[in-house]
């Protein structure tokens, strides 16, 4: 049979391509900066705002003559770490809250859910900005602030999932065979919520990347000379009247990674029946 339809299927655009893009980004970020050949912090007056394809500097240089390619690579590691960190930490906080709330039932469940709703009324960036006041600058501070700002959605989803699984047939069977509560949770419950937990981590990663770049762009996140996509966009924006390249590269990285993570998360979410 001759294959009908486009050569590159829908799933190529919505899953394979984003996955490959992200894999490339991660590999790039993990490249030791030695492989880029240049110290991301070394400055050269001669190379200030050098255009792309200047010999030895494929993407050009910034307003201090620092190599943009190596800054972008070292910034990728920071931004992706921030995204992953927020994904993991906010899922941990939200997961514990949601699963506890689902398992404990009355009288704790309504109290925990009311508290959650109250917290939910505040936007992530507002909470994170306030927390940055207390936590100071740095990657860890950003991750903690954004996670405390945005675990509520995760808690809601995992509570619903817990309520569903609690009544599931296999849980009843396990209870009927007289399994201890600890074993019930560890061996029967947890393995079954793991897919949902994984989806939630993936859902939160783009939020983390966006949050980090927003805070850093505002000057509340990472402090220069440490590079992240947000810091680079901030510098690029300031240099915009003289050179667009400083903005274009980090911007492209941010958009590509956000869209890719979003597509993958959507797909995985549909696969496991988890909505937003």
């Amino acid at each position, binding site marked *: 049979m001759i294959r009908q339809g486009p050569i590159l299927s829908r799933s190529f655009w919505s899953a394979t391509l984003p996955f490959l893009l992200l894999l490339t980004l991660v590999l790039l970020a993990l490249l030791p900066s030695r492989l880029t050949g240049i110290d991301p912090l070394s400055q050269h007056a001669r190379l200030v705002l050098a255009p792309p394809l200047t010999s030895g500097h494929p993407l050009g240089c910034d307003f201090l003559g620092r190599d943009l390619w190596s800054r972008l690579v070292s910034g990728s590691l920071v931004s992706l770490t921030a995204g992953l960190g927020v994904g993991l930490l906010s899922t941990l906080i939200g997961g514990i809250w949601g699963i506890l709330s689902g398992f404990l039932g009355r009288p704790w469940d309504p109290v925990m859910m*009311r508290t959650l*709703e*109250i917290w939910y*009324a*505040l*936007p*992530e*960036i*507002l909470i994170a*900005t*306030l*927390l*940055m*006041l*207390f936590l*100071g600058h740095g990657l860890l501070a950003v991750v903690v602030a954004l996670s405390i700002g945005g675990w509520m959605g995760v808690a809601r989803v995992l509570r619903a999932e817990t309520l569903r699984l609690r009544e599931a047939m296999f849980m009843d069977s396990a209870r009927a065979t007289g399994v201890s509560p600890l074993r019930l949770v560890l061996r029967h419950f947890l393995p079954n919520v793991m897919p949902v937990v994984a989806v939630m981590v993936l859902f939160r990663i*783009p939020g983390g990347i*966006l949050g980090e*770049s*927003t805070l850093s*762009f*505002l*000057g*509340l996140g990472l402090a220069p000379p440490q590079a992240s996509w947000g810091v680079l*966009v901030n510098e*690029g*924006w300031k240099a*915009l*009247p003289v050179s*667009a390249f400083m*903005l274009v590269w980090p*911007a492209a990285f*941010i*958009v590509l990674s*956000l*869209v890719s993570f*979003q*597509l993958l998360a959507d797909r995985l979410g549909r696969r496991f029946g988890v909505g937003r």
Partner: protein
Amino acid sequence: MRRILGRLLSSVILLWAVFTLTFLLTRFAPGNPFAQGRHMPPEVMANLMKVYHLDQPLWVQYLLTLRQTLEGDLGVSYKAAGIPVSEILLQTLPVSLTLGAAALLVSVLMGLLGGLLIGIGSPILSRTLRWTTTLLVGLPSFLLAAVLIDLLALRGGLLPVALWEGWRSAVLPVIALSVAPAGYLARVFAASMEETLDSPFYRTAVAKGLDPLRRIVFHLVLPSLNAVLSLLGPLAAAFLTGSFVVETVFAIPGMGRVFVLSVMNRDYPLIMGTTLVYTVFLTVAVLLGDFLSEAVDPRVRAV
């Protein structure tokens, strides 16, 4: 009625919780609000601390601030010495509200139009829009703002680069603020319409041969609208926080910029004032959104 009272009560609790948390955060934050970039004799510092009651025990400060706030007095800014916080807020809040309201209007209109076209447009148009909206969700507002400034203001010279003078200067910030939420709204609206297309009452409308316009308006669009309305509250939050960024980029003298600057300057009363005003607006927005969706969709009331 009981629901409304419950909502009001939880709003009051929220305000109190936000007040307390903000108070604790500011007081336990490292650094001194008066020791930024200048050197001053210890006597002057001690005097300043005394004037602003910062030398008192924590619980005295807490009760003092709480009483003051309950009386409607938000105190005086540390940085812009002597200027009451309420005066700063009165000057900047209308700017942010105008910007936010315009962005809300634009994004809802664009979102509804986009969602409608995805839902009932031709397959090619529908697919193109679907992809565009996916890309828009991944486009941070600061990035869009920077690109808009460069292309339309700096190079094109069509619109002002920054500041807040007349409607022309509002165009770029409103676009920067509303594009991403519009994309999100369009996706939500389209998904909701897809669900409605499957519903028994829509199939009935098709089966009894209702004319397409009435069918689409009354049996498809209106029942699907609720998904969008219930997002209006969170959306208002998105515009408030989005305005931190957009106001900073465009140097608009609004409350978002004041908030960011107050955090940078450790201006405790100003941080408290902006945070509380934000919280009030967010709760009001969420309440209004809920009432709207109740008014439009009788199914919500029944729950």
